[in-house]
């Protein structure tokens, strides 16, 4: 039981170009419990996606975006930040730590920054009491 990996979902903007073709799968194998989801723009993510991901069993969710100036869709990165904040508000409303949800802007193609961030986030989530699992779908 103790070895059950902590389920973390990371939504990352495709324009961060964190992985070349096929690399994402290999990367995730090194991080048990991690699911990386590439999205066309971080602005595509909305609060309902994030809460659904949490309700689906994720113990933590990260949204990785480009810097505001680098956003190819101009407003995507700033919109995304507001939406993550809104989802965090909802987590607080239901009495779950908002720390389980985070929005981070990282430099493009920076795999080292990604790994450091994952390590930090994972240890933060592990320090929180685990959310009970859903028995019924």
């Amino acid at each position, binding site marked *: 039981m103790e070895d059950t990996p902590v389920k973390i979902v990371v939504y990352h903007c495709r324009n961060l170009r964190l992985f070349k073709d096929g690399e994402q799968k290999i990367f995730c194998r090194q991080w048990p419990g991690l699911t990386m989801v590439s999205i066309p723009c971080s602005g595509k993510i909305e*609060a*309902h996606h994030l809460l659904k991901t*949490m*309700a689906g069993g994720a113990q933590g969710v990260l949204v990785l975006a480009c810097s505001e100036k680098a956003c190819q869709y101009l407003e995507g990165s700033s919109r995304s930040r507001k939406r993550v904040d809104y989802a965090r508000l909802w*987590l607080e*409303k*239901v009495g*779950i730590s908002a720390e389980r949800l985070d929005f981070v802007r990282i430099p493009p193609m920076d795999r080292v920054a990604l790994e450091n961030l994952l390590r930090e986030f994972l240890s933060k989530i592990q320090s929180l009491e685990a959310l009970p699992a*859903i028995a*019924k779908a």
Partner: protein
Amino acid sequence: MIVATLKEIDEIRKMIDRYDSVLVVGCDSCVAECAAGGARETMLLASALKLSYLKDHMNPTITEAVIDRQCVDDFIDQIADQVPEHDAILSLGCGAGVQALARVYSDKAIIPALNTLFIGETQSRGVWQENCLGCGSCKLGYFGAVCPVARCSKKLMNGPCGGSKGGRCEVNPEIPCGWDLIIRRLNALGELDRLTEYVPPVDWSTSHSGGPRKVVREDQQP
């Protein structure tokens, strides 16, 4: 459109905690436009409820459904096969939608998830403005298409009152003075002369004050 906001989750929980299974039903029309009760908010609320119950070690069945209009039977019928499997319906429709569901699914508890506020417009992204009270006798033609009933805090027909200051309403400086808007608009249209005519007090009998209203059109009936 009808503008509404989502209720706080604690209030919703108080109303639905007694049920083992709840069908959360969104309405993808007015309340979707005002980001209160459409497909997105239905997913958001259903997920938030699941998380909230999870935290309390409770596990009711929460199912999502969305229909285009909760105030029209043809659409309401679309969830007919899901309704019997649940103890209650949590509706993200406006008050009219909630009551229409209750009429159609008469043996089911129907709980509102929204506070229905007003008839209004999307003024800019994320901003909804009340601008019609459904008085039943529209006079916008005399007032440059700015409603004195809805936009003037005192519903004055021959305004402004003495409290209008710098285009703001004396009731609350956050509110633009409806009469300031009327005068500016008529002035821009070159139709200020419309205001020289005295407008008699509103006949409220055509409004909700005359009791619940109904429109019946035989030509539209089967």
